[in-house]
């Protein structure tokens, strides 16, 4: 019976599946919803929603799906009779106002009720229009309209509240479509980690201890070793401003994931504009920072270099000549040469490009793609880039140890 509701939810981006359907069926069979819509709202929300970012979408789907059910199931005529019986006159209303209120006929009322229930987005007390309490609107409870529909109140009919609560859309602030895949990014970056045993030997090496004890003819010999520590060092440089603006959110997400990652031994982040001209900057405002020769001198070849940028610029911008401080100089090096210096220094380097792959064959992108292995800034592309960065790691590491 609630299957269409499931498809409504899926349409709104909630990944509900068979597991949730079975759970909900089980809960309903156990009678957890107490046979009213309110209970159903709470039970289905607990079982179908998995994160506060989905609560708003759930509320919207619930509203859209159960709005019709709601109004149709209200016993309108009976409600109306009940209301008339309990109706009290409001002493401060003028005869004209009373006459105005009496004009509404049941059909008209029903239509207006449904309309307003659809329009109304929040709880309402007082006033003369919305469904609520203590007002002169024909709809609501403890109000003063002559003919109207009572919603809620003493008769045990609690149907209205779930829709009211869903309609309030209190979780709109938690919607967060942006960070949906930070986890995927974090998982992709995790593959970059590598461990090395480093520092004071304070961890018990069980295998070695047993072997040593055995060699010692049973005399206990405890062997310790240094604990495993992360050993990946990353240099991350990002193009800012100009043509990169549309991708600012995506790139800053990558930056925040990378800086939160605890499995890097060292992470250096730098900024540049369009192309590297001798200097990498410490801030997005292009201040501070380090020159390329300094960077090459400071960090070893085993650092992994990740460049992020669209690599799209006017062709002449690749050949602007500057010195290491980024000042124009006719005998300086071309932008492309600076890039090549970086690419040559770091054994493992990648360029992540947010532009769609279809555009990579032409212009400055194709030039830069010959300098750096280029990958798309998508979750898949990031995964490929990470594989590229780590490839050959163990072989080289083993060779270095011997």
């Amino acid at each position, binding site marked *: 019976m609630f299957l269409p509701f499931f498809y409504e939810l899926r349409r709104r981006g909630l*990944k509900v*599946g068979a*597991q*949730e359907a079975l*759970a909900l069926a*089980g*809960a309903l069979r*156990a009678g*957890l*919803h107490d046979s009213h819509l*309110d*209970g159903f*709202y*709470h*039970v289905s*929300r*607990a*079982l179908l*929603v*998995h*994160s*506060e970012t989905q*609560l708003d979408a759930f509320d919207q789907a619930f509203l859209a799906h159960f709005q019709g059910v709601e109004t149709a199931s209200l016993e309108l005529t009976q409600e109306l009779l009940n209301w008339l019986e309990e109706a009290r006159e409001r002493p401060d209303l003028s005869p004209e106002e009373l006459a105005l209120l009496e004009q509404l006929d049941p059909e008209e009322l029903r239509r207006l009720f449904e309309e307003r229930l659809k329009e109304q987005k929040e709880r309402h007390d007082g006033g003369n229009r919305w469904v609520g309490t203590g007002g002169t609107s024909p709809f609501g409870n403890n109000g003063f309209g002559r003919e109207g529909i009572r919603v809620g109140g003493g008769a045990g009919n609690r149907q209205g509240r779930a829709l009211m609560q869903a309609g309030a859309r*209190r*979780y709109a602030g*938690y919607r967060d479509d942006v*960070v949906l895949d*930070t*986890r995927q990014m*974090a*998982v992709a970056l*995790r593959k970059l980690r590598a461990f090395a045993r480093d520092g004071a030997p304070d961890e*018990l090496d*069980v295998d070695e*201890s*047993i072997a040593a*004890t055995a060699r010692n003819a*049973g*005399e*206990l010999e*405890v062997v310790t070793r240094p604990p495993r520590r992360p050993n990946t060092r990353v240099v991350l440089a990002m193009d800012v401003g100009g043509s990169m603006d549309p991708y600012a959110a995506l790139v800053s997400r990558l930056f925040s994931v990378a800086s939160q990652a*605890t499995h890097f031994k060292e992470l250096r982040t730098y900024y540049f504009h369009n192309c590297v001209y001798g200097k990498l900057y410490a801030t997005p405002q292009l201040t501070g920072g380090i020159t390329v020769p300094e960077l090459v001198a400071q960090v070893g070849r085993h650092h992994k270099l990740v460049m992020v940028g669209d690599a799209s610029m006017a062709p002449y911008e690749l050949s602007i000549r500057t010195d290491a401080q980024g000042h124009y100089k006719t005998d300086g090096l071309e932008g492309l040469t600076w890039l090549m210096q970086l690419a040559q220094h770091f054994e493992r380097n990648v360029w992540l490009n947010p532009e769609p792959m279809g555009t990579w064959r032409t212009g400055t992108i194709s030039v830069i793609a010959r300098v750096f292995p280029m990958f798309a800034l998508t979750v898949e592309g990031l995964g490929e880039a990470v594989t590229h960065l780590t490839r050959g790691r163990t072989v080289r590491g083993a060779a270095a140890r011997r």
Partner: protein
Amino acid sequence: MSQAPTPVRFKGTDTYLTHESLQAAVNCALTLQRPLLVKGEPGTGKTLLAEAIAEALGHRLITWHVKSTTRAQDGLYVYDTVQRLYDSRFNDGDVRDIRKYIRQGPLGEAFSSPERVVLLIDEVDKADLEFPNDLLHELDRMRFRVTETGDEVVAKHRPVVVITSNNEKELPDAFLRRCVFHFIDFPDTELMRRIVDVHHPGLDSALSEQALKVFYELRSFTRLRKKPSTSELIDWIAVLKAQGVHDLKLDEQLPFLGALLKKEQDLVSVAEAFGRGRRPRA
């Protein structure tokens, strides 16, 4: 799902007030015997919920505080190799019995308990990214095998599992699918009044009104880096009561503001807004 659904319904306790959506979530978790994942602002009573459930159902509570170094294995059992090595060296006790050196973790303890227990896995997001995935099978089947002995630990009674998260890391989908989810809203004024009543019975109603008013005004203050939460309000009122404060006004002379605001910048910005640059006494 072998056992009959529990007929018990959770309604909160004398000191833990609930909302009906929270009750529905807890009851779903109880009936379907699934873990309950609770999220919400810090200080909204996520951890206390587990204690309340244990109290309401009359079960023992086992807590597992997750830290950044916690591994899933730690929750099941720890094999004390060093102790066994030492014992073998000094001939203390029977080292042939490996079971003597297997100590159960919180999860193992909950499984092997003779009666049903409430297991709280606190702040699951503090641990490593893969931590929840490593627990999937154990929480699903409520059993695990001790590799050293080949013994299988099977839960006699599926424990009521409550998991809290502060959203520091996102949890994997496969894990989320198995949980009943609840997001604890920040209480509205009405519920907050009841909560204050429960914790400070017989409090001067004028004072509690004023305290609530100040509290919500502070919370609506958008410049705050960390908004004060329920537990901080309760503490603050306790201090006010202990110091015999009877009258409150939201201005620069607000007493014991340090109980509500925990960040230096917040104290400064409140002082600037209400006190024309003067620091409140904290």
